[in-house]
């Protein structure tokens, strides 16, 4: 019995160590003065972070990424919530089709998606290739599965159909019922999907690099281009990025849990 | 020495006592039931016999052999679980044959045995079905066959019928008893349903808080509950302390601490009327406070001398005269007042 427990603890420790070491080293590297002769860094400094925070290129890339991400997610909510609601309530025979459409991007790697997008938008009437719009469009599609799942589950747990029926009996119009009753009730449940999409888009490189690259430098592309210049600075950026993801994951967990509790 | 002998068995979970120095014996071929409310330790006792729950003290002997420290697979004991525990990736045939296969038998060797078992539990035609294709009752038959085919010394049944709906449960009770008699296999059955226990058992052990509070055949247990717990658990007995009974009967001497009176032995008569003065008993004035119909039984709540009594009568035309809020006479036969220890 005791030996079994020891075995399980060692297995978990070993795997977690494998996952932890690259993170730890990156962090140490970001606060090291010099680190190539000794087991531990020769000295510690916050200079790389200072340099990072005063780099206008990073700040610009960050703002661009934030803009693209927020824009995409807001657009996603605006279009997806009514669509899913209308389809589930009024056109339930189309539900399978909708499901197939929103799940498809899950199976399509970014590099494959990029091929067709560039093909369509590089010339012709809608030559938006190389502009931010093609990225937003592509991002919209790539977060479809996650947004769909969150919104769908939320609508189901708050029992949206009954809510609308009740509101309509009380004299609300359908649009009023949707805006004042359904939307506020599903938002907590949708929050987890929103944050998940956030962290996915923040880490997105393929589409950003292939569709727009240096013309509109997003965070991951910036990081990629910075890597060769200064290792220490790049590791500071990686740590910064990871802390961002950490905060997002924490929030996802919190919202996921509170949404569950509310519905419990 | 009895076939199965359990001595001084003790087990505690954290700070609750599951088995409290418990001892019991029963004979070969007996159908024994452990009856009690949830948490009384009956399932723990069963799992201890199977070797699935290690005990701290005491011993278990089967057929003269000490099995207290044997592994489950070496005990030659079969067990059927409440939720069947069938292996979902195996057919009925494979499930039933699993134990024999583990013994190293080839399919050709055990197939005949398995087939006979399938006939015994009436599942012919379902050999190639998977558990999820069967109803709950059928799944439980497979679980039964899977245990029986190993020809265990004891068959343990852990609330095997409680996940089934009432009709199927009744059928399976009868089936279970038929199969047990046919194989004359020593069986320990666990249930919290007193009606089921009374129907099916040769012998009942009533358990409470890790102790056995009474043992006996169904008739004894039902008609002579040993204490208040058994009386209340077994048959909705009216349990009255001696002074309460004295108040009700307006006199008489009662030696025991309390008495149990079954609801169906109390008779009701119109005001000022009474039974033929033949039997020995007491007549008291009372009032019908409530009447409930539970199918074939009419259940009256009668108040008499500040005591509340439950009275059960068969639902016949004879009962039509009794109305709610009516004043009645209550007849309590003396020989039906069971003294409790």
């Amino acid at each position, binding site marked *: 019995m005791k030996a079994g427990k020891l075995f*399980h*603890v060692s*297995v*978990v420790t070993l*795997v977690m160590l494998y*996952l932890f070491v*690259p993170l730890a*080293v*990156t962090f140490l590297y970001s606060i090291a003065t010099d*680190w*190539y002769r000794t*087991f531990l860094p020769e000295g510690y400094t916050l200079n790389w972070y200072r340099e990072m925070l005063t780099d206008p290129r990073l700040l610009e890339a960050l703002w661009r990424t934030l803009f693209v991400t927020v824009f995409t997610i807001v657009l996603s909510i605006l*279009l997806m919530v*009514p669509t899913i609601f209308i389809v589930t309530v009024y*056109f339930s025979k189309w539900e399978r089709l909708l499901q197939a*459409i929103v799940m*498809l991007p899950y*199976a*399509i*790697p*970014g*590099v*494959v998606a990029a*091929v*067709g*997008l*560039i093909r*369509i938008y590089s010339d012709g009437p809608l030559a938006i290739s190389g502009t931010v719009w093609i990225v937003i*469009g592509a991002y919209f*599609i790539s977060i479809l599965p996650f947004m769909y799942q969150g919104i769908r589950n939320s609508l189901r747990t708050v029992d949206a159909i009954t809510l609308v029926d009740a509101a309509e009996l009380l004299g609300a119009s359908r649009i009023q019922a949707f805006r004042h009753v359904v939307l506020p009730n599903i938002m907590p449940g949708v929050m987890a999907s929103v944050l998940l999409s956030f*962290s996915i888009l923040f*880490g997105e*490189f*393929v589409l950003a*690099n*292939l569709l727009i*690259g240096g013309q509109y430098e997003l965070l*991951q592309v910036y990081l*990629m281009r910075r*890597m060769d210049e200064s*290792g220490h600075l*790049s*590791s500071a950026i*990686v740590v910064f*990025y*990871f802390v961002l*993801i*950490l905060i997002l994951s924490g929030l996802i967990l919190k919202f996921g849990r509170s949404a569950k509790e509310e519905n419990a | 020495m009895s076939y199965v002998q359990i001595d001084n068995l003790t087990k505690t979970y954290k700070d609750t006592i599951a088995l409290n120095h418990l001892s019991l014996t029963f004979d070969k071929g007996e159908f024994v039931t452990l009856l009690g409310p949830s948490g009384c330790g009956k399932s723990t006792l069963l799992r201890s016999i*199977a*070797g699935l729950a290690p005990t701290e003290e005491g011993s278990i002997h089967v057929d003269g052999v000490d099995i207290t420290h044997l*592994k489950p*697979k070496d005990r030659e004991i079969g*067990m059927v679980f409440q*939720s069947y*525990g069938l292996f*979902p*990736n195996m057919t009925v045939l494979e499930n039933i044959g699993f134990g024999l296969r*583990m013994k190293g038998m080839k399919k050709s060797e055990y197939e005949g045995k398995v087939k006979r078992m399938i006939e015994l539990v009436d599942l012919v035609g379902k050999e190639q079905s998977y558990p999820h294709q069967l109803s709950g009752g059928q799944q439980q038959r497979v*679980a039964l066959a*899977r245990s029986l085919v190993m020809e265990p010394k004891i068959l343990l049944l852990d609330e095997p019928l409680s996940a089934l709906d009432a009709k199927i449960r009744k059928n399976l009770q009868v089936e279970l008893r038929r199969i047990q008699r046919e194989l004359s296999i020593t069986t320990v059955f666990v249930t919290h349903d007193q009606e089921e226990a009374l129907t099916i058992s040769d012998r009942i052990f009533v358990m409470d808080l890790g102790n056995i509070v009474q043992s006996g055949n169904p008739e004894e247990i039902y008609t002579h509950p040993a204490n208040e717990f058994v009386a209340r658990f077994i048959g909705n007995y009216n349990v009255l302390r001696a002074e309460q009974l004295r108040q009700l009967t307006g006199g008489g001497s009662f030696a025991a601490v309390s008495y149990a009176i079954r609801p169906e032995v109390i008779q009701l008569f119109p005001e000022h009327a009474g039974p033929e003065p033949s039997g020995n008993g007491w007549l008291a004035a009372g009032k019908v406070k409530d009447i409930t119909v539970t199918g074939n039984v009419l259940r009256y709540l009668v108040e008499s001398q500040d005591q509340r009594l439950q009275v059960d009568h068969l639902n016949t035309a004879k009962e039509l005269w009794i109305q709610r809020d009516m004043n009645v006479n209550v007849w309590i036969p003396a020989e039906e007042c069971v003294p409790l220890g």
Partner: protein
Amino acid sequence: MQTFKQKRMLLLALFPFVIVVLGFEILPLLAMMLDSFKADEGQGWSLMQYATALGNKYYLLALKNSILISFYSSLIGIVAALLAAYSITKLSPKVRNLVLMFSNMTSNFAGVPLAFAYIILLGNNGIFTILFQQLGWDVLTSFNLYSWTGLTLVYVYFQIPLAILLLYPTYFGIHEQWKEAASLLGASRLQFWRYIGMPVILPGVVGTFSILFANSMGAYATAYALVGSNYNLLAIRIGSLFAGDVFPRPELASALAMILGGTMIAAMWLNERMMRRVRRDLR
């Protein structure tokens, strides 16, 4: 009864979603499919792109490399995760949640940042590389991060957390009573896992393997960040065929993309088939 006007209003509300999905999901995919059956520069229908893709040693090798690295990284990832996820179920709930949270967190650590971390760890001037040289240990002298072994190691890193995330719940599909029943019927622990435990979690394992395989087949950022376009992987080839420095050949890129997709579907189908042979009870 719904009136015609109401229905039209509802359909109208669906319009924006339909437009975006058509414009950025359906039409690009269709265009890509059609393109793959066209000659260079879109001149007429032809199977020449597929002939090039599957006839040219270079592209064939890219396909083979992609399949191999996906297979090995998924295999290593799933074996590690099978062990780890099972061991996690044996920990106390508090530690268990902590470990799962950490594992989930690292699943976000992929692509460019991950490649970077490995470069400072094991690259030519990586900390471990230099350290081991100084210590005189030659374990790492034969190791090269920019080799296939190196890339596999990095791929395994992003496979493990994903695999743990997906496999962990499947262990809860094993009922304690099956173990008890099996032990009463004379099965050892090993026999339990061989005849019941493994078959029961098999669908979950197979499904997870398919996802891991697809995940690494389509992976682009990690390899690209490590050595740019130098790895001969299918995803890298596709990228450089329409957005790289070589002469763009979108039709060939389309054909390669179709092949990439086809491989993923074929792998999934194969996995399903093999699983059904063991689990005949499913459907």
